[in-house]
Every structure is written in structure tokens, then in C-alpha cells.
């Protein structure tokens, strides 16, 4: 009996140790978001119950991975940064050379027993690598360091862009840029780039008709990428093709009104007008069935999650933790903003999922690794305080 009791307390202690690494506010926000996601998924996959079951499995796997990652102390993560990055880039080169093509893009690498999509792991390993690099050169950051950082970032981004996978390239680029930004990139560089971006978008909006005219090619862009931007500017030019997605998701969202049509009552969703309704366009399902109210709740949850992440960054005792946490938080923002922007027709359709909500095990695991990293960074601070 005694033996059992002591064993039991040891187990309890062990579990308590594992759980103590979890950040309660972030965990609460994540659970809330994932519950909402599961509810929406229950409607979006109404006709494919096996998808819903698969989603539940994905959730369990992703949360377990988060739990594990949260246990890894940041110092250990720093040791892993370079090897992870190196392996990722090698695999990307492997994709470039031996990759398998699916849906017009070379994204998959067959490693014998399974197929993997190396670009996905770069979403984590690029910010990890950059944070580690800046942390190592913390003492004297020079222009040279930012140049090296840019090279570290651009190698995988260009490889992914070349596959072509614009969505992932944007997300990896954003994650890296955020690290560089938080590392202290001069405003003198940031402001002109932002200005150029604003001007470019303004030009596109104003001159879109001419630039999208028949036969005009954009240097450096694939035809389908150009088409996506042009369709965004005027979806009605292609109502049966790419414009169909934007038109139908806008109708779904708009017809949802303030309080929505009710769970599983969305006609656009259930009559299959909304494309990719359990993956990239799941926000349209949510906005149709839960209306503006649901959309506001979702925005608030994301704000809370990003806010908590930025708070963890701001309080982290190490530069590595600060940079990594800041970049991961803003990555969540990038996902959410780009996805909701494209589904509501203000951004081009680039294949970015709605974070923690869209169906897809790989993306969910990657995002939960991000959460785990945030928790690991926060746990380090708490340990230091004690």
C-alpha cells in the first residue's frame, strides 16, 4: 500500500512537472479556439464524418506535440536550431531535385515509407535559426549580421517560392522578417520598404485593369499567381473559375448577417457553394452560420492569443526567447489576417489556412509546436523567477 501510494505521488509529481510547463492563459485561449474550431468543423464536414474523426485525431496529436515541446527548455532549443535549419534546407533542395508533383506544385518528398512536405517545418526552423543567430551575436549586432540573416531567410523562402507554394513562402518569409524586425532592424530600412509596399498595392488597385489585361505578363510571377491577384481585383471577370471561390465565400459571409444562419444551417456551405469549406475557406462557414457575432468572437480570441504571445516575448529574459516568441506570435497574426483577408475578398487567394481552425494535421501540428515554444519560453521565465 505504502509503496503504491509513494509511487502514485511520484507519478503525480511527474505529471505536475509536465503540466507546470504549460502557460494557463495561453492554454485556456488555445482550448477555447480549438473548441470553436471543432464546432465549426462539425458543420463543415457534415457530409464527411471521417474527416471530423480525423480532425479529432489531429487535435490529440497536435496537443501532445505541444505538451512535449513545452517541456524543452529554450537553451536546448537553441542547440537544435542549426541542425533543424540545415536538415530543412537539405530536404527542400531534395524536393527541388527529386520532389513529387501534386496539383501542379512540387512540394512533397518521398522518403521511402511516407511522403513529407519539408516546407512546413521551415515555418518553425527559420525563426528558430534566426533567433539563435541573433542571440549568438547579441553582443555586437552589425549590418553584416542582418545581411547574413537575410541570406539565411531567403534560401528557404526562394526554394519554397520556386515549388511553387506562395502561401508557405509568405508565411516563412513573414516569420523570418519578424525575427529580424524584433532584432532591431533600422527603421530607416523598414519605412521605405513599407512605403514601397503601400505604393505597390495602391498602384495595383488603381491600374489593375491595365495590368490584368489579356497577355500582360508579370516578371517573376507564375500565370496562376497573376490570375489570383487579378481575380481578387475583379472576381466577376472569372465567375466560373478562380473568381467563383471569392464570389461564393463573399455570398456565404454576407448572407450570414449579424447572428448567422445557425449551426449546420448555412445554405452556401451545405449546398457546396463554398469551396474548400473545411480547409482554407472554413472562415466562410463560420461567418455564414454564426454571423458577425461569431467573426468578432474569433477576432477577439486571436487578439488574446497574439497578445499573450507578445507579452511572453516582452517578458522573456533571453534575446532568443524574445525574438522567437515575438516572431511566432506575429506568425499567428499573419496566418489569421491573410486567411480572413483572402476569404473576405481583400487579399489574393494564396492557400493559407485559418490557424488552429482549418482542417489539416500538418498545419495544426506546426501551429501547436509554435504554442509549445511560447510555453517553453514562458516556463523558462517562471523558473528563473523562482
Amino acid at each position, binding site marked *: 500500500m505504502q509503496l503504491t501510494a509513494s509511487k502514485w505521488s511520484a507519478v503525480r509529481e511527474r505529471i505536475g512537472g509536465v503540466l507546470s510547463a504549460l502557460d494557463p492563459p495561453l492554454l485556456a485561449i488555445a482550448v477555447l479556439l480549438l473548441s470553436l474550431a471543432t464546432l465549426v468543423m462539425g458543420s463543415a464536414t457534415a457530409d464527411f464524418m471521417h474527416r471530423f474523426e480525423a480532425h479529432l485525431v489531429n487535435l490529440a496529436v497536435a496537443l501532445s506535440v505541444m505538451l512535449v515541446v513545452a517541456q524543452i527548455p529554450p537553451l536546448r532549443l537553441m542547440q537544435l536550431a542549426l541542425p533543424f535549419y540545415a536538415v530543412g534546407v537539405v530536404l527542400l533542395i531534395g524536393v527541388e531535385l527529386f520532389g513529387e508533383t501534386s496539383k501542379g506544385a512540387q512540394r512533397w518528398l518521398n522518403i521511402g515509407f511516407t511522403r513529407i512536405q519539408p516546407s512546413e517545418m521551415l515555418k518553425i526552423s527559420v525563426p528558430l535559426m534566426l533567433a539563435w543567430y541573433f542571440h549568438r551575436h*547579441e*553582443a*555586437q*549586432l*552589425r*549590418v553584416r549580421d*542582418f545581411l547574413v540573416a537575410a541570406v539565411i531567410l531567403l534560401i528557404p523562402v526562394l526554394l519554397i517560392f520556386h515549388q511553387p507554394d506562395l502561401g508557405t513562402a509568405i508565411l516563412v518569409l513573414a516569420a523570418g522578417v*519578424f525575427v529580424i*524586425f*524584433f532584432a*532591431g532592424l*533600422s527603421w530607416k530600412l523598414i519605412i521605405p520598404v513599407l512605403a514601397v509596399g503601400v505604393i505597390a498595392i495602391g498602384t495595383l488597385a488603381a491600374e489593375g485593369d491595365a495590368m490584368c489585361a489579356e497577355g500582360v505578363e508579370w516578371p517573376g510571377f507564375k500565370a496562376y499567381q497573376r490570375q489570383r491577384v487579378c481575380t481578387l481585383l475583379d472576381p466577376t471577370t472569372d465567375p466560373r473559375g478562380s473568381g467563383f471561390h471569392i464570389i*461564393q465565400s*463573399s*455570398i*456565404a*459571409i*454576407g*448572407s*450570414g*448577417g*449579424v447572428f448567422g444562419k445557425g449551426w449546420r444551417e448555412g*445554405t*452556401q456551405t451545405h*449546398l*457546396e*457553394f463554398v469551396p474548400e469549406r473545411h480547409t482554407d475557406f472554413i472562415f466562410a462557414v463560420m*461567418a455564414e452560420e454564426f*454571423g*458577425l457575432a461569431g*467573426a*468578432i468572437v474569433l*477576432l477577439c480570441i*486571436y*487578439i488574446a492569443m*497574439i*497578445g499573450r504571445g*507578445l507579452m511572453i*516575448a*516582452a517578458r522573456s529574459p533571453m*534575446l532568443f526567447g*524574445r525574438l522567437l516568441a*515575438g516572431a511566432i*506570435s*506575429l506568425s499567428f*497574426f499573419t496566418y489569421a*489576417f491573410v486567411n*480572413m*483577408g483572402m476569404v*473576405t*475578398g*481583400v487579399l489574393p487567394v494564396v492557400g493559407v489556412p485559418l490557424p488552429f481552425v482549418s482542417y489539416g494535421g500538418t498545419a495544426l501540428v506546426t501551429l501547436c509546436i509554435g504554442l509549445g515554444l511560447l510555453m517553453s519560453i514562458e516556463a523558462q521565465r517562471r523558473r528563473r523567477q523562482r
Partner: protein
Amino acid sequence: MTDLHSPEIQLIRFRRRVYFAGAVVLVCFSLLFARFFWLQVVRHDYYATRAEDNRIALLPVTPNRGLILDRNGEVLARNYSAYTLEIQPSRVSNLEHTIDELARLVNIEARDRKRFRKLMEESRNFDTLPIRTRLTDDEVARFIGQRYRFPGVEVRARLFRQYPNTELASHVLGYMGRINRRDAARIDEAGVADNYRGTDHIGKSGLEQFYEDELHGVTGFEQVEVTAAGRAVRVLSHTAPQNGNNLRLTLDAGLQRVVEQAFGERRGALVAIEPSTGGVLALVSKPTFDPNLFVDGIDAASWEALNTSADHPLLNRAIYSAYPPGSTFKPFMALGALTAGKRTPSFAIADPGHFEYGGHLFRDDKVGGHGSVDMHKSIVVSCNTYYYRLAADWGIDGIAGFMSQMGLGSRSGIDIEGESTGVLPSPEWKKKRFKRPEQQKWYAGETISVGIGQGYNAYTMMQMAQAVAILANDGVVFKPHLVKQIENVRTGASRQVEAKPVRTVDLKPEHIAVIKQAMVDVNKAGTGARAFAGAPYVAAGKTGTAQAFSLRGAQYRGGKLAEKLRDHALFVAFAPADDPKIALAVIVENAGFGAQSAAPIARQVFDYYLLGNKPAGPAPEDSDATDSE
């Protein structure tokens, strides 16, 4: 970049950037919120309507087309259900390839492809077009299994028109064809485009065309919730279609069959009318065609054959082709002369065998003449001289005035399209017909030829039958019609086509009696006697021969001329003479004398209609019939 490496300053700078990032996040999310507000509040009504439009489709439910039945209820046109394999060309990128692939599953022959191409040329661009009709169950099963491979291709159960008697009465029934661009424009103009949603076929000729509005019915609608792919999920509301009305004809299919058989392989036309109502009992144009050929869209080869045939089977000779009436004109000349007071029955001429007028000699058929000829004899022996002289005495205006009262030279108003007016010659007609002044002048000599039914005279068998019916009916005129009643299938109610006299020709009974008696005697002792020998009823008639080719003085030897140049044989008749039940006019093209070819057909018609005797075969040609008409 940073010279001050103090951790505190670094942290302050970092936090400043975190605030900045937080602010950017809030600004961007505010923009998203603004976008949500725009879509979900400001534009909500618009998108809600769009969503409803997406969700609900109005599907037409096509009504069954009305049947066409003869006067005894025999079905002449009906519908049958068949599976068709249909392609929507606008949804198929590579049509040839798709058809090749389909041909591996179902039997698609070269003629199907040709027909499909022809349909494509004629179709409205959003149509679905049949590549194959009447699929077997096996073929349907094979296609259904592979359907996913063929977007834009589907199997549908459709109702098709069927004419169970194939060629019988084809010119009366007409035919159905797919709605082409011209039809579609007409439908739009008539404001019935909604009623034709879901309808692919429309009546193109005959009764199918004339009674299209009655036969078509009212299209019903189903409000259906549909998926993006167009699959119906559930029915929200249903408005049942109203099936088309059935047409009950005055036509007697048995009689029609007898007539068509009586003609055999010969060309010609016959119209038989019930004098007391104007109901058409038989309307025959030979050769006939099979209207079933048109139902699926006629293939190019059959179309070519029908159109280029020297016999012109698509031509409705009974109502469109106008022929000189020849001697069948004489009873009407005589009746008119009595009515106008130009002749008395007993007035007789001495016939020398010719009539001289203005230095020109008009010959009789009989060399040496018929001797003393009064009105009765003029009809029985068909004396030309009598009528040359009558025409000269009466004048063209008088003749034209009377003949127009008998319905000659104007459309009878029968209920199918395509009637021609024929030619009732008169000085006015000539002025309208010709352009040059010297052609427009009416010459007195022309009146003489008109008197014996030659010259410019040209009437359809429809008009001749109508004239005979007016005579048989003692001057009371009924409008000829094919449809007796229109029956609403759902309510069982029926509308009778009223047989009301439209007008009366002012004729004296004693004059009518003279003509009728003379026509009776034609069949007893005159040119019709051989054909009507032994008939147990009394039939009145008159033979006639119309020149298809004018012979300049040469002696006519029918058998030796090329077939197309031979004269047409005519016969007009009614029976029984004292209470006419049927009046007819018949022409057999290039068949020589009326007595020889046309009268035996009339005999078979009367034997069948009055006695119920079915003839064993085509009407015999009486080669011994006299050429004296």
C-alpha cells in the same frame, strides 16, 4: 548597429517594437472587422438574395403533348418515353474526343454524329442536344457506371412524339422538330418563352404546327433546392404541368388509309369533305413521308432524300398544288350560267366539233361533234363546244364572280398552314400577276379556254372539294376543318369546333337539281359509267383531264409521252346524290384521263365510306376508258 548594448536599453527598444507590432495587429484586425461589417451588415440584403438565388432553382416540368385521334378514336400521334444520351456542348471542352469516348460505351454511328452536328448548327447555344436516342437498358447501365468521366453528358428519360401509322396522313399531322433559333425567336415574341422552358420540340407543319398552342399544354414548375453542382436536394414547391389537349379529328383514318392505298405508287391528291359540316374526311397528298423521321432530328441523308426527290414527298399537294380543273370545271360553269340567267337547261347548241372565235378554231375532243347538245348532255358527254360558246356569251367577269362564290381562287381556311390561293383568272388577276402592259391585257380568246377549265385556271384539290361540297350542300358553305373537337385531358371537358354555315351561295333548287342529275348520269351513262358500274348507291361525278404540258396542235398519245409530261387525271364527285354524305376532288398526276385513273379511286372511297367495303389493292387503271370528256 546598436552601440549601446546594455540589456535594459535593449529590452526597452524591444518592448517598443512589441507595442508597435501589437498596434499593427489591432489596426489590421480593425480593417478585417470593417470588411466583415461591410459584407454582413451593410450588404447583407444583397448577399442574402444572392444566397437564395444560389439555393433555389426553378425546374420546368414539361407537360405531355396532346394526342391526335381520328374521328373514331384511332390514335394518329402519341408520345413514348425513351432514354436519350444528351450532351451540353457548352460544358464539354473537346466534343469530338468526348463523343469518341462515349462511343466505347454506347453504340454511336456515323449518322448519329452527323445528326448531332446538324443539331449543333441549329440549336440555341445553351441547349443540351441528344447524341443518341432510344438507348437500351444495357447502354443506360453502362453509361451510368462511367458517368463521372463525362461532365456535361447525361442520360434523360424524355417523351418523344410517335406516329404509329408511320406515313398515314403525314401531310395532315405534320411533324415535330427541335426548337431552332427561328422558333425560339417566335416563342419569345409570343411571350410564351417560360412555357417552353424544358420543351425541346415544337410542331413544324400540319396539325402539329397549327394546333401547337393546344397540344403543348402548360409547363409546370418545381422549386428545388440545389447544390452548387446542380444536384437537386429537396423539392420546395411543385406546380403540376397541365398536359396538352387532345385533338379529335373529322378525318377518318380508315378512309385515309383506303385512299393512300388506292393511289398506290402514283402521285396526286384527294380531299374528301362531309358536305353538311365542312369536316374533312380524308386529305391525301401522295407520295407521303414518315414524320417519325423528324422526331429525333432528321439525319442528313434522309433529309436530302426527301428534299431532292423528284416526287417532292414533303409537298402537300392537296392544299398547295394548284392544277387546271379541266372538265371538272364544267358543272360549275353550267350552274353559274343558270344562276346568272345566261342559259336555260333546255337551250341546245348544234356541235360541229369546234368553235370559232376571232378567227381561231377551238376544238372539241370528238371529231365531228356531239350533234345537238343541251346542258344535261354537255355535262354527261363533256362537250367542249358548249362551254366555249357559254364562256364567250357569259364573259370572264361573270365567270370569275360566280367561281369565287364557289370558293375557287381563295384559301378555304382549313386548319393547317401552307394553303395556296390557286388562280381564278380575271382581268384584275392578270393586272396584278403581270408587269408589262401588253401582258396585263385580257384577251377575249382567253375567256374561251377558261370555259373548259383550262387556260389560267388553277385550283387546289381542297378548293375543288369545297366547291363540290357547296354544290352537294345546295349552296350552304361550311368552312373546311380537320379538327372536330379539342379535349382537355384533365377535366374531360371538350370544345366542339362548331360546324356553322359561314355563308350561302344564292342558288335556285331547280338549277341545282339539273346539275346534280347531269352529274349522276355521268356515272350512269357518261365518262364515269365504267368506274361506277354496279354501285349500289347513286353517285354524282365529273371527270376531267388537265394538261400538264401544252401540245401545239399535236395529237395526244398519252402512253408515248414521257411520264412527267402526261396529263393529270381529275375527278370530282359526291354521294349519295340525294343526301350527300361525302364530296371529293381527286387528281392523279400524269395519269391521263380522269375516267381512267381518278374515277376508280373515287369509287373505292365511296364503297368504303358508304358501304364499309375495304378494297383489296390500289384502284385499277381503266385503260379502256374513253378519252371523250
